[in-house]
C-alpha cells in the first residue's frame, strides 16, 4: 500500500491539527503584530513600526503559517508510526523554523525614528527557540520509530 494513501488517515485528526496550526502560526501572531502596530502608532512610534516592516511581516507570517497548517493537516491526518506522518511532521517543523526566523527578523532588528536608532541582537534567544523546534522535529522521527511496530501490526 502507498504510504501516502488517503485510506490510511483520519480526516478529523487532520482537521484538528490544521486548526491548531492556523491558530498557533497565523491567528495569534497576526493579532499580536496587529496589536503591536496599533500600540506603536498610538504612542507616536509609527516610524518604528515602519522601520520594523511590520506590515510586510504580517504577509510573510500568514503565508508561512498557512503552509505550516497545511503540513500539520497531513501530519495529523496520518497515524502515529507511519512514515507519512513522520515526513509531514518533520516538514511542518522545518517550515515552523523558517516561520520563526522570519517572525523574529533573524534575531536582529534595527529601529530608527527621528535622531534615535536602536539595534537589538537577540540571535541567542532565537537559536534557543530553533533548538526547541528541532526537538519537535526529532520527536516525529522518534515517534515513528517507537510506534512503528504497533502501527504495522494493525495494518490489514
Amino acid at each position, binding site marked *: 500500500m502507498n504510504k501516502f494513501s488517503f485510506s490510511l488517515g483520519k480526516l478529523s485528526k487532520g482537521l484538528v491539527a490544521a486548526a491548531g496550526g492556523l491558530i498557533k502560526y497565523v491567528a495569534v501572531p497576526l493579532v499580536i503584530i496587529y496589536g503591536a502596530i496599533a500600540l506603536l502608532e498610538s504612542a507616536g512610534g509609527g516610524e518604528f513600526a515602519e522601520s520594523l516592516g511590520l506590515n510586510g511581516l504580517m504577509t510573510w507570517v500568514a503565508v508561512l503559517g498557512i503552509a505550516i497548517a497545511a503540513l500539520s493537516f497531513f501530519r495529523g491526518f496520518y497515524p502515529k508510526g507511519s512514515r507519512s506522518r513522520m515526513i509531514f511532521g518533520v516538514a511542518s517543523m522545518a517550515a515552523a523554523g523558517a516561520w520563526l526566523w522570519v517572525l523574529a527578523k533573524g534575531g536582529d532588528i534595527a529601529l530608527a525614528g527621528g535622531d534615535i536608532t536602536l539595534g537589538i*541582537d537577540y540571535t541567542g534567544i532565537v537559536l534557543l527557540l530553533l533548538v526547541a523546534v528541532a526537538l519537535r522535529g526529532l520527536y516525529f522521527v522518534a515517534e515513528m520509530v517507537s510506534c512503528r511496530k504497533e502501527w504495522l501490526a494493525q495494518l490489514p
Partner: protein
Amino acid sequence: MHWGPLALRLSAVAVNLFVVAILILSLLPLATGDLQVRAPEGEKAATSFEDGVLTMSIPLEIFNGGYFDIDDVRVFIKLGQDGIVLTEAATDVMSIQAGKLNRLDPAFSFDLSKIDKEGLEAMVFERTQMEYDIGVEGSYTLGLVNADIGFQRTMEWEPLIDDLAFAASDPPYVINGTSIDILVRYSFDASSLLRDRPVGMAFTLGNDTAMIGDGHISMVLQDHNEGVARITVPQEAAASLIGPQDLTLGIDISVLGVEAHLDRDYHWEGVI
C-alpha cells in the same frame, strides 16, 4: 510508554519554558522601572586637559533592580561638524550588576592633537554648533541579548579661546633700529580648562605677496587675557609698509600639546 518521543517532547517544552522565563525575568524589571540612572548628589562632571587630550568624566549611579547583569556596557561619543567626525571617544567596558546600586565613572578622552587643522581651529577658536553622536551598547540576559542605542544632538560648543580680538596699539608701531616693530593689541577669554596653563602664541604678518614680519609671546593663561604683541618687520620688508593696506595676521597658538592656526585681516594705516 514511548519514553524516547516523550523525552524529546518534554525537552522541547523545557527549552520553550526556559526562553519564556528568561524573557519575563528580563523584561519585567525594565517595564516596572527597576532600572534607574541618576547623577550622584553634589557631584559634577570633571573635565581635564593634558597633552592635547580632553578628558570628561561623568559620575553616574545606576540601580539595576533586574535579575540579570548588564555586561559589556560601553558608551561612545563622536564629535562632528557639518557631518564630518572630528574626534571620538569611548568609555572602558563597564558592568551593571543586578540587584544593586552601581557606581560608574564613564570617562571620555578626546585626543585633540589628532584632529585635522580646520576642525581644530573650530574647536579652539569658534563658538559653533557641534554634532554629538552618542551611542550606548551592552549585553543582557546572560549575553543572549545585545543592544545598542544611538542618538544625535546638536549642541553649542564652548571654544577654548573665545572673543579673540586684535587692534592696532597706540602707537601702532615703533622704529627699532633699522626694523619696524608693529604693535598689535590683543585680548581673548580662555576656557577654565586652560586657566594657569602656559601658552605660546606666534604671529606672522603678511601682505598679498609675502610674509613680512613675525613675533612671539608666551604667557600663563587667565580667564581674560590682554596685552600687546610686537611683530618685527625687518629692514628689507619695511619699505612695503609705507602706504595703508590690508595685511593678514596669522596666529599660531600652542597650548598643552594642541596647536591651532587662525588668520585675521589686519588693516595697516601706513607709516606716518
